[in-house]
């Protein structure tokens, strides 16, 4: 069965050229797949069907294989993420030092489970398996920055700030 036709025109968005560059650098070989998916996620924030279609049209990999790989690895996101992301570390040290309570508080207070995004699209909550900041447990990665010695109050303050932000950039 042929893959569904893409719903975007790949020539208008320059980011696809960068994706293609990754494939070229790896000689369009099957082992370029994971590296290419990393590039897609870096540029677009997530991997969708259009991206998989683009990648598998250039690499000798079937769409089903590519989907299998993309969904196998936790790091790859298949849905668009919110404007801000908060990844709570669920490593052992963070677990022992109260990471679980923080997740529970977010669940209770913001009705947000790991993997979900707030309805206004502002904040995505993720969990991550040990970011190696065990010395600072409990820790999280907020918009790419490691924040250590977390408390419920700190998380609430950050979430409230994010959620109160004006939608000034939304019209871009």
């Amino acid at each position, binding site marked *: 069965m042929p893959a569904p036709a893409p719903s975007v025109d790949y020539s208008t968005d320059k980011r696809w050229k960068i994706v293609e560059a990754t494939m070229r650098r790896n000689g369009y*070989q*099957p*082992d*370029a*797949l*994971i*590296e290419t*998916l*990393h590039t897609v996620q870096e540029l677009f924030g997530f991997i969708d069907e259009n991206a998989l279609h683009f990648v598998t049209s250039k690499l000798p*990999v079937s769409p089903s*294989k590519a989907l*299998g*790989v993309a969904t*196998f*690895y*936790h*790091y*790859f996101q298949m849905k668009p993420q919110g404007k801000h992301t908060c990844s709570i570390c*669920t*490593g*052992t*040290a963070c*677990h*022992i*030092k109260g990471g679980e309570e923080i997740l529970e508080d977010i669940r209770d207070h913001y009705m947000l489970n790991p993997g979900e995004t707030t309805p206004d699209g502002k904040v995505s909550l993720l969990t*991550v*398996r*040990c*970011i*190696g*900041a*065990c*010395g*600072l*447990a409990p*820790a999280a990665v907020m918009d*790419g*920055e*490691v*924040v*250590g010695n977390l408390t419920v109050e700190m998380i609430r303050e950050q979430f409230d700030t994010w959620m109160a932000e004006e939608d000034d950039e939304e019209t871009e």
Partner: protein
Amino acid sequence: MTKKRNNPRIAVHTYDELMDVADSTREQLDAYKHHITICVAAGCISQSSDKVLEALIAGAEERGMLDEVEIKGVGCLGLCAKGPLLRIDPEGILYHGVTVDDVDTILDTLKKGPNKKLLLSEEIPFFKRQQKVVLENSGYIDPESLPEYIAAGGYQGLFRALTEMGPNDVINEVTKSGLRGRGGGGYPTGLKWVTVAKADSNVKYVICNADEGDPGAFMDRSVLESDPHRVIEGMAIAGYAVGASKGYVYIRAEYPLAVERLKLAIRHARQAHLLGNNIFGTTFDFSIDVRLGAGAFVCGEETALIASIEGKRGIPRPRPPYPADLGLWGKPTLINNVETFANIAPILRNGGDWYAAIGTEQSKGTKVFALAGQIQNTGLIEVPMGITLREIVYDIGGGLPDGRHFKAVQTGGPSGGCVPEQFLDMPVDYESLREVGTIMGSGGMIVMDDSSSMVNVARYFMEFSMSESCGKCIPCRVGTRQMYDLLDKFVKRTATQRDYDMLVELCDLCQNTSLCGLGKAAPNPVISTMKYFNEEYQESMLQNEEALMGEKAE
């Protein structure tokens, strides 16, 4: 780091050129009257050490001190709990918890002497009791500077191997050192190298496993962030020894800083001809590529890791054939962990006998541990094998905070177990740890106090193994799920004797019939907590039966 260190274009083809770089770099460094170094590994950066570094440089510039004071970021100083850490040399002053507001105080130190409030004594057991081999440069050299690594004796091991020794001599030296795999298994490194060297093929590969997936472990991250060239040198030596000319580092995407520094180091090494063709003017070629992992714990298993490098789902396959015979793209492949490779250069530089003199009869050398959990001095430590757990927890670790009572220390992550108080005086080596039902693992050590429920800990690790199971073999895929559900019953105090018996049976089944290490080791945390903290399992059942009786009576 904002201030990119100058990495002058250097090219190293001979020993003299290597020494020239070392000497001129040392000269440059010695020209400074003072050195202020601040940790810029991930732990301290998250406490804004990069901003302190920036402010220090700006402050020193304002005072016109930059000609006599060298200010730079360095790798991990170890005591992450008290970060950001800063050193002033040659005075030998160590400051902790520095902030941007302390910049003037720090710069005043050079004239007025140490500030008591920020001062941290290096005489404390945390520093005194350690012995550094892997971390010898960590916290002293700029991780982004190749000349500084060379000035610290770097690439001399590779030179010695390539010009004075044959591949067999290199392997003999590694065998003599007694080094064993630091990823957790403890397989003799020399033996692994011999097998790959003997494999008949003109194409072979060397893979560095930097997919540090154990929750609670950050040794590999720190090594790569603090001293990446050490790993590159180790890999190149391994390549020469086994006859490979291509290496891969498989590293977690979750470690962006380590990835960045590693890639930079590879680029510098290539520009300096320390990687590439005809290294040191010999016929030896070696190049290294970086492959990003994507968050799958199972990829720490050799065959799954190979599948992932090949661009496939990280699913293990039965062994044998081992990767030493049939590895990456069907070619003989040597896979070692970051810390293993980090030990190679010093072994070649100082000789295998030197290394073998450290440690115990069966476990040689030192081991890096990530100390975390309910302990005063969380951070990164390196100790000789055979040190006791008590020394690690109470002397180096400074004991538990707030007068809490020690309950257990967890090693080996989801594949390991919990060591209770009665074994605190046991030496830390591969065999002793295995005897008490846990493993050395990659080096995560989590200290737990008596507020931790061991049943809860067991469930936590089972949840981990369950969600990380790749799904290929049934004992692991279904077994971990069933064991998780049973453990959940214990946590919720609804378990019965039947559940207990079932759990014991499933542990045995999963351990003995799973395909790869993940499934085989998944029951370990349950088995060890059942053995040493059985009363906690019994308690949650007992109360439950009492509750049932109560219900019936009503």
